[in-house]
């Protein structure tokens, strides 16, 4: 409810909103179109014409450039980080929210303080640590820095867990449940919305991550999609139809996720304010 927009008529608003939608979608649409166009048609045909006939040759070209492996590595990396982050964040958040032990509050402040540590600043020292540990260009190097939980997730989960009625937990205790039982059978089922939110945010940010995989991996072995796309673009600068197929492969899985769960994603962004 805003007073300002009352002054503007609905047709004007729709026109502006539609223009915004066009500006948002047009780059994706022409990129997608180009990915189904033959190099011949792209170079000699009318600019931005529909693919005639549509071809998959760019996508088969990607397979030859190792994109199949990159897709698998990216999916695996995202999955491992997702499971690790959720598990370890839930455990830590429960300890902070529901247990009393010496040092708890001090530690929580340490966790909070790390929220101020920017990823850009840690890339260089993390690289040194990984190099010293002999983990350069390994799958471990991709996941280790993120798999042990995220302070921000712990912070959000702690807030949520504090809202779970104490009676629920007490009842389970009386039935003989230990701490792990309580977490698995009471706390997790009661926290589905926030867990869905955190999962979505983690998948989106890990699937898209670029700087860390770029510096810590080399060659095709542990290359993720973003790194493969950047590499392809610098090697085949003129073969735009191939490059557009690469960006499509990097983007489409998230667009599918978005079409399926768009409303949840929007809500998740507002809840977490993430990044």
């Amino acid at each position, binding site marked *: 409810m805003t007073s300002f927009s009352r002054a503007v008529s609905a047709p004007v608003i729709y026109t502006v909103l539609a223009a915004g939608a066009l500006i948002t979608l047009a780059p994706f649409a022409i990129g997608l179109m180009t990915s189904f166009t033959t190099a011949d048609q792209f170079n000699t045909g009318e600019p931005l014409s529909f693919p005639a006939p549509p071809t998959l040759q760019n996508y088969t070209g990607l397979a030859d450039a190792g994109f199949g492996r990159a897709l698998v590595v990216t999916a695996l990396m995202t999955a491992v980080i997702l499971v690790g982050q959720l598990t370890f964040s839930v455990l830590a958040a429960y300890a902070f929210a529901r247990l009393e032990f010496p040092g708890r509050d001090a530690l929580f402040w340490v966790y909070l303080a790390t929220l101020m540590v920017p990823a850009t*600043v840690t890339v*260089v020292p993390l690289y040194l640590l990984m190099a010293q540990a002999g983990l350069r260009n390994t799958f471990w190097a991709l996941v280790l820095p993120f798999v*042990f939980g995220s302070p921000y997730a712990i912070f959000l989960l702690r807030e949520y867990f504090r809202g779970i009625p104490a009676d629920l937990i007490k009842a389970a205790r009386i039935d003989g449940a230990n701490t792990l039982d309580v977490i698995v059978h009471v706390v997790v089922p009661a926290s589905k919305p926030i867990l869905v939110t955190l999962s979505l945010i983690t998948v989106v940010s890990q699937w898209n991550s670029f700087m860390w995989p770029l510096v810590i991996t080399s060659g095709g072995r542990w290359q993720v999609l973003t790194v493969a796309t950047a590499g392809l673009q610098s090697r085949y600068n003129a073969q735009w139809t191939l490059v557009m197929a690469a960006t499509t492969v990097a983007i489409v899985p998230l667009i599918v996720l978005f079409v399926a769960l768009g409303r949840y994603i929007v809500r998740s962004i507002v809840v977490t304010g993430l990044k």
Partner: protein
Amino acid sequence: MANRVRATAVGYALLAPSLFGVVTFLLLPMLVVGWLSVHRWDLLGPVEYVGLDNWRSVLTDPSFATSLLVTALFIVIVVPTQSLLGLAAAAMLARSLPGSGFFRTLYVLPWICSPLAIAVLWRWILAPTDGAVSRLLGERIEWLTDPDLALPVVSAVTIWTNVGYVTLFFLAGILAIPTDIQDAARTDGANAWQRFRRITLPMLRPTLLFVLVTGVISAAQVFDTVYALTAGGPQGRTDLIAHRIYAEAFGAAAVGRAAVMAAVLFVLLVGVTIAQHSYFRRRITYDVV
């Protein structure tokens, strides 16, 4: 007593994995940044102590000054523009006309996509000879290699990516303003502009601060977009600080110098965050759900 010991043991057992992660991958790296900044390392050979040489050379290096200046300019272009556009979009969406939810969701699309892939997409669209824009216009424009155009263009791509995200927060803020205040103002004869200026805008202050501060912090760390669009060029005109740190460490293999730059960036960002907290502490809060 035994109970207390047990609770402590359980508490630390639950914290153990994340504590290991926080210490090893967040706190230790901060110490290592300081340590590296007084050492020389070329990524492969031995690490060698050099005292304050890196600090001296970075702080007197014109390319570092350029990078800081370019980053500041980038922030000054991107953050206010995306906030204004986001506010305007939110004001229109807040009217809740049929289809508003569709537009709101659609606008977030660029933001959830890989910034690297988005940058590669735009690199083709803006390519001087066979790019989409040049071919449509039938005219060769050096969007990314003209020293005067490159930074505005990189900024525009960033804004295009972020507007939908910013819109979400303004929309949530506007929808949380109690309608009775607006109605009372209307009864008192306030026109639309006066109500926007005197009610909506002041009540959006917390949202506005959030959007501005997070906008500054994330704009100060943009990397993927520059990496794929311009690689910092032409003549360093788009050499944002995150890209400079990367190029210094992994291009020039001057890791000690990169650590100095990272330390400077950290101090600047902590400054922004502290400023944010003192603002937010003083802010008036409304019932924002």
